[in-house]
């Protein structure tokens, strides 16, 4: 805790943590204490480690093993080792590549749009305006809504006949723009994008809001003294202060974007339709494993999907470490 008199956020004077062991203490004592700490540390992390092993590592190892077999969901036939057959099939399947492309396109559109919108909203509701709590609540509400429910509601809003979105478009464009949102290959993905941003933006907004409030007011005061206008303050105080928040939000949004499933399952007439224009890797995975019962092949998709997300995350981490170095 910084001393109460210091301005919030002022770096605490450098120095050893108050409770560090005296240098004169015998080595034996230190070792014993280390041992106790180690034991306590292990004990505290045990539940998390067990859960991680049970629900993350074990299923992944299981998927990895299964991806080399022809395991079916249900079948009286014995399971056999098929080598790389599943991988060959997945990687030569045009539908799989279509799904991967859709995922990438979705991420490329949603990540900048959603992050930008969330930042804008956060700056907006961070101002000392009357009723700002109400606005924060309104913008955050969709996040609390289950995606499946949000998708169902948006499906109704986007109906070409009687849907509210086209009703508004009709008035605004004098009937010129009346897309058949979920039944047209060119509008289905935009419809999914709109729904996803609407539902997800509140979450990022709250994180940005927390980030904004951690920026010391004194910096803005100093900027004002220096004669910086609102844009200059945003550019030179707000953005640098939000750098770590921004990196976190980008990371999370990318991972969420690749997990796209509920919307494309619920909103189009046929999951992933029309003409596979909203098919994603998660949908492909589910339909292969459960619909077609090809657990081995679905496991291969899962492994490829994992490696892909891992690669994206590593690239991002590298990028974000450089950002931290600048700080």
């Amino acid at each position: 805790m910084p001393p109460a008199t210091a301005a919030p956020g002022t770096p605490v004077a450098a120095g050893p943590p108050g409770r560090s062991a005296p240098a004169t203490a015998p080595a034996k004592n230190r070792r014993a204490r280390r041992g106790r700490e180690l034991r306590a540390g292990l004990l505290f992390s045990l539940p998390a480690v067990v859960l991680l092993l049970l629900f993350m590592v074990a299923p992944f190892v299981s998927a990895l093993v299964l991806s080399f077999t022809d395991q079916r969901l249900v079948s009286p036939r014995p399971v056999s080792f098929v080598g790389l057959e599943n991988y060959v099939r997945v990687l030569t399947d045009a539908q799989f590549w279509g799904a991967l492309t859709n995922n990438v396109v979705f991420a490329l559109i949603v990540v900048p749009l959603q992050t930008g919108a969330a930042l804008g909203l956060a700056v907006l509701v961070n101002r000392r305006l009357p009723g700002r709590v109400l606005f924060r609540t309104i913008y955050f509400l969709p996040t609390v809504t289950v995606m499946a429910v949000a998708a169902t509601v948006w499906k109704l809003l986007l109906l070409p006949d009687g849907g509210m979105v086209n009703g508004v478009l009709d008035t605004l464009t004098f009937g010129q723009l009346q897309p058949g949102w979920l039944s047209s290959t060119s509008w289905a993905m935009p419809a999914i994008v709109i729904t996803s941003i609407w539902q997800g933006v509140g979450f990022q907004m709250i994180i940005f809001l927390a980030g904004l409030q951690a920026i010391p007011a004194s910096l803005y005061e100093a900027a004002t003294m220096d004669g910086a206008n609102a844009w200059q303050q945003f550019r030179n105080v707000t953005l640098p202060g939000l750098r770590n928040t921004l990196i976190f939000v980008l990371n999370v949004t990318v991972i969420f974007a690749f997990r796209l499933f509920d919307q494309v399952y619920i909103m189009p007439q046929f999951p992933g339709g029309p003409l596979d224009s909203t098919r994603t890797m998660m949908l492909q995975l589910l339909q292969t494993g459960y619909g077609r019962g090809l657990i081995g092949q679905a496991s291969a998709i899962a492994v490829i999907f994992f490696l892909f997300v891992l690669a994206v995350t590593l690239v991002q981490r590298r990028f974000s470490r450089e950002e931290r170095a600048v700080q």
Partner: protein
Amino acid sequence: MRRSIVAAGCASLALLTTTACSGSGGAAAEAATCDGTIDGPVTLTSFYHGGGAEKETFLAQVEAFNASQDQVTVEVQSVPEGTYGDSVRAAAASGDLPHILDFDGPNLYNYAWNGDLIPLDSCVSPELKADLLPSITAQGTYDGKLYGVGSFDSGVLLYAYRSALEEVGARIPTGIDDAWTAEEFTDILGRLQDAGYDSPLDAHMWYGRQGEWFSYAFSPIVQSAGGDLIDRTDFSSADGTLNSPEAVEAMSVFQEWFENGYVDTEAQDDSPFLNKTSPISWNGMWAYANGYHEAAGDDLVALPLPDFGTGSKTGMGSWQFGITRETEDPDAAWAFLEFLLQEENQLMTYETVGAPPSRISVLEKAEIYAEDGPLALVTESLRESPRIAVPRPQTPAYPAITQAFAQAVDDISNGGDVQAALDEAVRRIDQDITDNGGYPAFE
């Protein structure tokens, strides 16, 4: 997913080739049979699909059954219809199947092949068996044994407003044999559109999510053209059958309806036909009692599906019941199924759902299916099964077939290349059959 983990464990111990790690293993177990006596009080679980009036009727019958005797209690677990097949497969994989399973007819062959169902031959009395519609027993039989019974059958047909057809001078068929030809039907749709009905056909594309609709309702197009979902001589390939020139041509006509905007693709309920904005509806026999008759009154006509070359065909079969390998006392489960097939219960279902009862003796008492009843053509189709009412392919590959065909229907209706869509469906079906070694029988 318990079994997958077990399988993974087996795999990591490099025991892959041993039979200890084989699939569901149900086929290996000795199937229980009916011996005519119920051994003590027993509680049975049952899955049930769907909702609405059909489910309410079913639940009322379950309650009546439970109250009628004190040996067997049936507990019902609802499973959503849209992903029902997936839920059942997941339950089978994890050993969580109920004792009594209801399923959309053609999935039966896969369940039976897996060893999930037990044959009912030792349970059904010969009198009852003789009284069941031939279409019902055809649908319920796999590998020479009866695995499922349904309390009602079904059919697909066209409904139309007579006045709208007269308005454009369309010929009104009087029976199955003089059904509209495909060209005639296309022409009538065009004339109706010219007459101001923007999308004259309500094909219920929104049912697409409900698993079976695309295969059930639109495979008669392929069959009427002389093709089929699979070559039924040995059920080993769909090549040359599903993607035959005749099938491609028929599905191209189907696509033309969408390209010309004849089909209302945006509807999310029955309203296009009920409001007469789409005066022709491609729907199941259930629609008659579920609002169509009320909306159209005497103006309603029921017509056979169009003839694409080899005569009008229709879908058939509905949800059936079977007894799973989890059941130790099949007599108890059969007592319940027999109860559902009793005349008064069949008539109750008929009255609430409007479906044709599966027992010939009861069907005769169902007014709308009687000889001069409004849906007599459904009865005729079912009695003429498989010439007119075509059962969906009786093969364990059916789940793969229906998924591939439904995908093709969706692609075609959205403007995808017809030949490519059907070729892809064939590729997926044949791949599935090869992967399963041609689905050899496991005894």
